[in-house]
């Protein structure tokens, strides 16, 4: 047996075909890997098996086309069961390969294991395929080249797995990456094959070949194999593409839904002024939702960064923000805080930022969170706080505290700061001060207060009570409390709300006024006494007249009785006159005494006409003395005035004596005219006019001033006091000129009695 190796040659067209098939198969494998990854459950198994079948067929077909391209000078047949076995090996290898690459993750261990299994599979397929050869030659293998071919198979598998894993793309039907991967893989598989072929050398044996189950592959067979392979691969590819289309459509539907959801979310974010963000700390990548862009007022196309955020932060809050996110980034902790933004137009926004820290697969820290524009809420809150502070200020200024208390437990529900202040508590003491207040209530007022409250509860009515507050320093205040019941739906009193006003100042002012009233009364009395002193002669005359008449009448009475025949009728008449004149004298004296009387204002209903007439009686002597005629024009049925009789008499007397004084030295008519009449607005008007010297022209305004006088011995208090008296009666006193000569003084007094102090 000649040990001469048979020299094989290659049919290069078939070699090219085998390479093409390898590339096509690779492409299909890449495509299918994507599908397998996309699928789940049993569809995944179907895709895996189908894909592995197609890919295995491709690899196998490449192998046999490559074998057929090898031309030996002897006929070569193939034992078909072994060929089938090699196909199974190729498919198994493909299963392993697809199984590995279609996983979502691929670690080094898995990749290495996969490539060893796959490489071994491919090598097995190759050498099983070689074993299927039936030819009249002995096939010998160069062991080192065999090992090299197996190593190539494993390396190629590794490369294929890596490429496939990284270029598998579910969506892209045909991409440059995939194509490149297919070319690389398609080129690599034949390298292994042809290295394996190079390891084999054939030596003719001349021994008859067992040709059972052996078939010879003709050129036609070669074409058949190639065609079948292309068909299988094409079908696989087609299926993959169709499936991808469906998948894409499903995905589009899903995407549509997702977009819709996103739109809703975006709208919700817009409405709630809440933007979302993601922040990968290591890369500084920041993702913003649309609303976040709006809140920060950055263009949608801007790439958000922490720096941009800081640019918008209010300068006063910059330190806080940096500190907060800096610490969060360092500690990987959630953060939640509020700060201000200063927008380019100068406006200020308030934002509330909440973020959750999380670590992704790679272990890098990222924050996912929301930024809420709370400006409106903040403004509302500020407005509320402002209005509350106005209220508090108003309470402080008016010394008015507000409160509310529940009827059931008698406990306080609300106490304003001013309430605490009035009671001498600190607002920090809280509602417990409510109980303590009982101790601060003046002991004498407690029972009254309690009674008022109880009645208000039982009658469901408003209440009002004035009580004193005894402060720890021993001083006390006056407080006026007004309460109003709040009823529930069934009409029961559940609480009382109300105010407490510190009326101490008012009280003190009242006391002060009372003192002033006393002072005025005293002063008025001094004035009256002075005035009466000046009038002594005239007053004495007035008293003297009736006394003189009475004395004379008494004498004549005696005469009538003393005559021989006593004239009793005449005597009786005389006695009656004595009674009348005595009474008259007594009346005048009592009137005078009244004017000397001491005492405060005593209010009663007074007939002003009567007052005028009484004063005319007292002053008649004085008027007569200076040849002054007194004219009166008093309107009958004048309404009465609520006032102090003596003080009103004083006013009339003062005005009349002034008039008399003004006329003492004038020539011609001396007439004192006194008029009373109704006036508008339920007032009555009294005028006292004279034909005297008149008012000093440039001093009309001054005549009512204290200590202003034109008289030689005047005190200058008369008119001042008169005005005070009239005003304390709610009236007015003023002066004017009389026509054609002299002065007029007018007094208006309210006839409707009002509850005045």
């Amino acid at each position, binding site marked *: 047996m000649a040990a001469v190796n048979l020299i094989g040659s290659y049919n290069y067209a078939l070699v090219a075909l085998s390479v093409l098939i390898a590339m096509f198969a690779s492409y299909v494998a890449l495509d299918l890997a994507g599908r397998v990854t996309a699928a789940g459950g049993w569809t995944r198994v179907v895709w895996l098996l189908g894909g592995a079948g197609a890919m295995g067929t491709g690899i196998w077909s490449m192998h046999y086309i490559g074998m057929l391209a090898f031309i030996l000078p002897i006929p070569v047949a193939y034992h078909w069961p072994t060929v089938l076995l090699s196909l199974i090996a190729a498919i198994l290898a493909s299963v392993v390969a697809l199984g590995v690459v279609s996983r979502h993750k691929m670690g080094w261990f898995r990749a290495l294991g996969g490539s060893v299994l796959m490489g071994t599979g491919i090598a097995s397929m190759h050498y099983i395929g070689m074993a299927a050869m039936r030819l009249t030659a002995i096939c010998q293998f160069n062991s080192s080249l065999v090992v090299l071919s197996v190593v190539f198979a494993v390396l190629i598998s590794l490369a294929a797995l890596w490429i496939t894993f990284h270029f598998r793309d579910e969506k892209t039907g045909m991409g440059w990456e995939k194509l490149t991967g297919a070319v690389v893989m398609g080129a690599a598989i034949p390298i292994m094959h042809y290295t394996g072929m190079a390891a084999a050398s054939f030596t003719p044996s001349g021994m008859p070949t067992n040709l059972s189950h052996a078939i010879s592959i003709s050129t036609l067979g070669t074409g058949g194999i190639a065609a079948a392979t292309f068909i299988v691969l094409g079908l696989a590819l087609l299926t993959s593409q169709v499936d991808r289309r469906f998948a894409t459509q499903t995905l589009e539907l899903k995407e549509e839904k997702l977009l819709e959801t996103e739109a809703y979310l975006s709208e919700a974010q817009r409405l709630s002024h809440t933007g979302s963000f993601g922040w990968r700390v290591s890369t500084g990548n920041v993702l913003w939702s649309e609303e976040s862009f709006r809140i920060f007022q950055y263009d949608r196309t801007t790439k958000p960064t922490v720096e941009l955020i800081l640019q918008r932060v209010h300068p006063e809050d910059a330190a806080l923000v940096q500190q907060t996110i800096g610490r969060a980034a360092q500690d990987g902790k959630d953060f939640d805080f509020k700060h201000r933004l200063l927008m380019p137009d100068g406006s200020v926004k308030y934002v509330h930022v909440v973020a959750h820290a999380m670590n992704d697969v790679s272990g890098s820290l990222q924050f996912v969170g929301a930024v809420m524009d709370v400006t409106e809420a903040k403004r509302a809150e500020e407005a509320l706080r402002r209005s509350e502070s106005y209220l508090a200020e108003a309470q402080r200024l008016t010394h008015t505290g507000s409160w509310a208390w529940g009827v059931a437990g008698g406990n306080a529900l609300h106490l304003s700061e001013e309430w605490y202040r009035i009671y001498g508590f600190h607002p920090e003491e809280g509602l417990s001060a409510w109980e303590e207040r009982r101790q601060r209530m003046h002991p004498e007022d407690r029972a009254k207060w309690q009674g008022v409250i109880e009645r208000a509860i039982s009658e469901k009515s408003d209440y009002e009570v004035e009580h004193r507050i005894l402060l720890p320093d021993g001083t006390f205040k006056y407080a006026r409390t007004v309460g109003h019941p709040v009823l529930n739906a069934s009409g029961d009193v559940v609480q009382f709300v109300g105010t407490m006003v510190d009326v101490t100042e008012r009280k003190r002012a009242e006391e002060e006024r009372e003192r002033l009233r006393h002072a005025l009364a005293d002063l008025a009395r001094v004035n009256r006494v002075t005035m009466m002193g000046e009038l002594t002669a005239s007053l004495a005359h007035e008293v003297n007249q009736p006394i003189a008449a009475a004395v004379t009448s008494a004498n*004549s009475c005696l005469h009538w009785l003393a005559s021989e025949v006593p004239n009793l009728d005449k005597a009786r008449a005389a006695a009656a*006159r004595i009674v009348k004149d005595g009474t008259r004298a007594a009346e005048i004296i009592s009137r005078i005494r009244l004017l000397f009387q001491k005492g405060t204002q005593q209010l009663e209903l007074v007939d002003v006409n009567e007052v005028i007439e009484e004063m005319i009686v007292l002053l008649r002597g004085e008027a007569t003395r200076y040849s002054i005629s007194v004219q009166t024009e008093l309107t009958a049925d004048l309404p009465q005035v609520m006032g102090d009789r003596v003080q009103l008499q004083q006013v009339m007397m003062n005005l009349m004596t002034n008039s008399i004084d003004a006329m003492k030295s004038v020539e011609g008519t001396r007439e004192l005219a006194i008029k009373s009449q109704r006036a508008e607005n339920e007032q009555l008007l009294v005028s006292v006019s004279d034909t005297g010297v008149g008012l000093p022209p440039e001093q009309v305004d001054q005549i009512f001033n204290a200590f202003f006088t034109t008289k030689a011995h005047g005190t200058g208090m008369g008119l001042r006091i008169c005005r005070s008296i009239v005003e304390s009666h709610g009236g007015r006193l003023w002066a004017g000129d009389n026509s054609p000569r002299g002065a007029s003084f007018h007094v208006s007094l309210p006839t409707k009695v009002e509850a005045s102090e």
Partner: protein
Amino acid sequence: MTSAGAPTVFIIDDDASVRASIGDLLESCGLRSESFGAAEEFLRGELPNGPSCLVLDVRLPGVNGLDFQKRLADAGFQIPIIFITGHGDIPMTVKAMKSGAVEFLTKPFRDRDLLDAIRQALERDKATRQGRAEIAELRKRYETLTGREREVMGLVVSGMLNKQIAGELGNSEVTVKIQRGRVMKKMKAGSLAELVKMAGHLGVPSSEK
């Protein structure tokens, strides 16, 4: 004023009680009186025929009592006045008395003081009226004298002797004597002294040369 001889007391006071009481007092003493509230009312009334006097309040509405006294005097209306006043002071009293007031009484006065004053005033008025009547009679007698007789009377009362008068008039002493007798007769003078007194009342100027 029915009977010419009955005395009347006029009262002027603005106080009705005072007027009434004084009137009654006078009545109780049998004196007639008439009252007035104001001076003008009194002036409007009839003038008194018989002896009368005036009780006048110093202080009257519209006019002062002292002024009124002066007005009456200026008008030649002579009537004795008794002033009454509620409060009199010394200057007022002096002034009133100087102007011929009978009395100045301060209210209330004793009835006797008033009645005495009234009595005195009426006396005075009566005397005044009497004096006025006598003078009227003398004047009437004097009217009957001739011019020469009046001359003689004037010279006689001046204290000249008949001879001196004759020399003065250029007559004989006898003629003067006759004329002098006629004068004495016509004038109803009982003595030279009486004639001198009459001449004094009449205000006949004693002719001295």
